[in-house]
């Protein structure tokens, strides 16, 4: 466990020292500011309410969940894997008394931590903006639901990140991983749009899984089905990603 902890601390330190993480936080913050300005503009210009204090964080989540956050996950996965393969720093890491499984798991865990931290920041900032600019009555129950929705949105994003990690361990360069990820994302989204009956089982379709947590009566069957599908994708992507990572020669 001490070896895994050391590997995890190392991965977190490396991600923290890269500017891309800061960029993702700034972009998320920009979405909140721009979103809030638009809401205020709509309200004062056309007299439309826009959103309430607790609807604003959900609106922000819906926007970033399909744009910035998958992009952020892609950048992290590429940095953690393809980046280290291409500049040979992986040798610096792999010749220590730590197994490849622990290194792979530590990298995956570090990416998960950064996605979670980004979501927490988004929740806090959008909640503050929502309460400051769109003040209306908000119950504790609805705020807990908002938090649950943010927690739920972590899982599909993590699965998307695992998918990109798999790509990073199969394709040669970071650029090809990035473009393949974007292309695959758009294709899967397109399939979900053209064939809506299949949207619910695609990893990209499951990005909207968190919406289920907003219903007045929780659709437990749908939530469980979505969770099991996400778990299945996670197991497949993690196992395949590790297989290719373990087979890699440096």
């Amino acid at each position, binding site marked *: 466990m001490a070896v895994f902890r050391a590997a995890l601390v190392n991965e977190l330190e490396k991600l923290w020292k890269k500017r891309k993480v800061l960029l993702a936080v700034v972009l998320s913050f920009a979405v909140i500011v721009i979103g809030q300005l638009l809401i205020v503009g709509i309200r004062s210009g056309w007299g439309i309410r826009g959103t309430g204090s607790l609807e604003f964080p959900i609106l922000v989540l819906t926007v970033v969940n399909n744009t910035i956050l998958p992009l952020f996950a892609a950048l992290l996965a590429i940095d953690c894997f393809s980046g280290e393969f291409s*500049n040979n720093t992986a040798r*610096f890491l792999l010749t220590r008394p730590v197994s490849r499984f622990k290194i792979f798991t530590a990298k995956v865990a570090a990416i998960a931590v950064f996605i979670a931290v980004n979501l927490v920041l988004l929740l806090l900032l959008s909640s503050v903006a929502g309460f400051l600019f769109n003040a209306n009555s908000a119950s504790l129950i609805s705020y807990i639901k908002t938090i649950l929705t943010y927690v739920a949105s972590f899982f599909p994003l993590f699965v998307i990140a695992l998918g990109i990690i798999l790509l990073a361990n199969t394709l040669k360069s970071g650029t090809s991983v990035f473009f393949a990820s974007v292309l695959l994302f758009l294709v899967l989204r397109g399939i979900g749009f053209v064939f809506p009956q299949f949207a619910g089982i695609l990893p990209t379709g499951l990005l909207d899984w968190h919406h289920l947590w907003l219903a007045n009566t929780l659709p437990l069957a749908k939530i469980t089905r979505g969770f099991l599908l996400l778990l299945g994708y996670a197991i497949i992507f993690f196992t395949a990603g590790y297989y290719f990572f373990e087979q890699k020669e*440096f």
Partner: protein
Amino acid sequence: MEKVIEISDLTKIYPNSRGIRNINLDIHAGEIFGFLGPNGAGKTTAMKIMTGLIKPDHGDVKIFGRSVTEEYEQAMAEVGCLIEIAQAYPFLTAYENLKQQARYYPDVDSRRIDEVLELTGILKYKDEKPKKFSLGMKQRLGLAAAMLSRPKVLILDEPFNGLDVEGMIEIRKLILHLAKNEQTTFFISSHLIHDVELTCNRIGIIFDGRLLSVDTTQNILNNYPTLEDYFVSEVERYGRISSSSGQ
């Protein structure tokens, strides 16, 4: 003497038919073993297998009796290594790079990091990022990382690469000091015959992926004027054998 590294029947053939074939070799405690061969002979391939960076087609390497392919963590616990040109993380400082490595060893603290930076002559650059380092400085940082955990075995692939004359002399002295005073075992590959002759006490010649011969430096220099003459003689003998057997 205790066997530290056991290489048995090690084979790795790349799609272009190059690689290494059936290498068998034992390295004992306190030896400074020189793995000598021209570019493309298979030195780096053997060393990459020894450090788990690539997998052999067959055969195995055991370090202190632990298989590198089966029990990697245990096998590498007492090993420090530098494979090809050291590439540290360019966005971390020299100190932070070593700190990353130090986390895997409970008894390596900040003082030890400063100590190895001092030993390799780059202490004054500890807060600089290696992207600004020259090749020689990067090599020194790689050596510092290899020595960081006070390993009992050091596997160094072309450690003199990029070093100036002063640097080569310093590193050579350091290797001799560690072998004599701390019983550190070295496995060093190089194509620089002169440096191998001055540093190593046992030498193996690798050519065309095959280990041609292994002997002590003293024996070699008793029979040949220089290591270079021995190397040429072994390679020519191999050439005659392989051409007569139609290889």
